[in-house]
């Protein structure tokens, strides 16, 4: 369980209180409500808030805007992320995962391509897939469906359901609610401007 107590940050978050249990948590609210900022705080990227957040020791976070040098290759990103975890046989593990979701052909084709030459959706699928290979208690996704086609969204929802079945916690923000119909049980949390 992640507990958020009286979290305030600048004029973006005001006294936010929330309890997030394992399963699928959907944080929604209007633009500018502070959803991304809240995820930054939960993930400890932003430590300048006042208040308290607990239960957030083991997590990984897929940001809304992802940055990785466009001159590096698809395989370099996978290698880097898996190296952070101390995983040596990164290619085997990554393609085992790809096979489960029918992505072997796409990933094989993109393996030696530069990240800059991939489409936005392909890049998002690369980042999403790599992060989902990591073992964490919580997975945070900020606007994961943005720029992704229908089959990509279906894949992501399959992975969400898989993570839930493994007793993982998911926190997601999105303005696209239609894909969420594929999730077995969605817990909604509203974050508004006040």
């Amino acid at each position, binding site marked *: 369980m992640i507990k958020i107590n009286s979290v305030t940050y600048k004029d973006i978050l005001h006294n936010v209180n929330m309890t997030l249990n394992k399963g699928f948590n959907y944080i929604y609210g209007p633009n500018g409500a502070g959803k*991304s*900022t809240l995820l*930054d705080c939960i*993930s*400890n*990227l*932003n*430590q*300048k808030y006042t208040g308290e957040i607990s239960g957030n020791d083991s997590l*990984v*976070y*897929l*940001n809304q*805007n*992802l*940055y*990785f*040098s466009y*001159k*590096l290759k698809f395989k*370099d990103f996978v*290698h*880097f*992320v898996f*190296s*952070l*975890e*101390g995983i040596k046989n990164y290619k085997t593990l990554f393609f085992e995962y790809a096979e489960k979701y029918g992505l072997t052909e796409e990933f094989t084709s993109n393996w030696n391509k530069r990240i800059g030459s991939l489409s936005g959706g392909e890049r998002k699928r690369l980042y999403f897939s790599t*992060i989902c290979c*990591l073992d964490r208690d919580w997975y945070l996704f900020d606007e994961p469906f943005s720029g992704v086609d229908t089959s990509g969204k279906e894949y992501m929802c399959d992975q969400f359901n898989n993570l839930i079945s493994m007793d993982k916690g998911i926190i997601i923000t999105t303005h696209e609610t239609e894909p969420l119909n594929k999730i077995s049980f969605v817990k909604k949390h509203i974050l508004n401007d006040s």
Partner: protein
Amino acid sequence: MRVVKAYYILNLKMLRNEIFTLIWSLLLPVIFLTLNINNIHSLYDLRFFWAFIIISCFFYGVGIHAAKLRNEGLLKTYFSITESRYEFFFANILTQMTFIFFSFLLFNITASIIFQFNMFQLTYYSTFLIILSIPIAFLSFTLTLITKINANDVSTIVSILMLVSFITLFSTDFNHFNLIRIVGDLLIDHTLNGYILYSIVSISSIILGLFSLKKYSVISLESR
């Protein structure tokens, strides 16, 4: 250690992808040396060139690099996977030390050919200066505390200061504050006062650097 290694390998891959910039960065000190042939009379005169390379690499490659990456949002992606500011910092120092070593190799080979200096002595003294100068890498990280000025502007200011420092190297009015001279003279100042001053400045630089690292936020100052 594995996280440091991961960042280090990533940094080397990024350097490899900027091959022309890399080659130019390695050649520039050599070109500078050949333009100053008449000013070199002994091996020790090369210390200012070594100091210039070291200071430039640490300031641009560690401190300014961290400030720019923050503003580009790159670190948010890295640190979203695992919070690793210390490993990121030490990997950058290692990357710069690797680059400096190869830069010195090319520079020293050129110097040994032109001036007939002993290559072993050149390698020994230049490598020793790299090790003595590690606290400068820590000091460079204090640049990330500057939040009111854009990272690119900080980079420009540092460029100007480096150029002025090199030009005024032999001016007696400014050389007490000249970082290139201060670092270069580490090789020849064997007085007790010199050792004490070096120890105080090094420890202070490391403390300031670690403080800056603790305060370092990966959230961009320019965009939300």
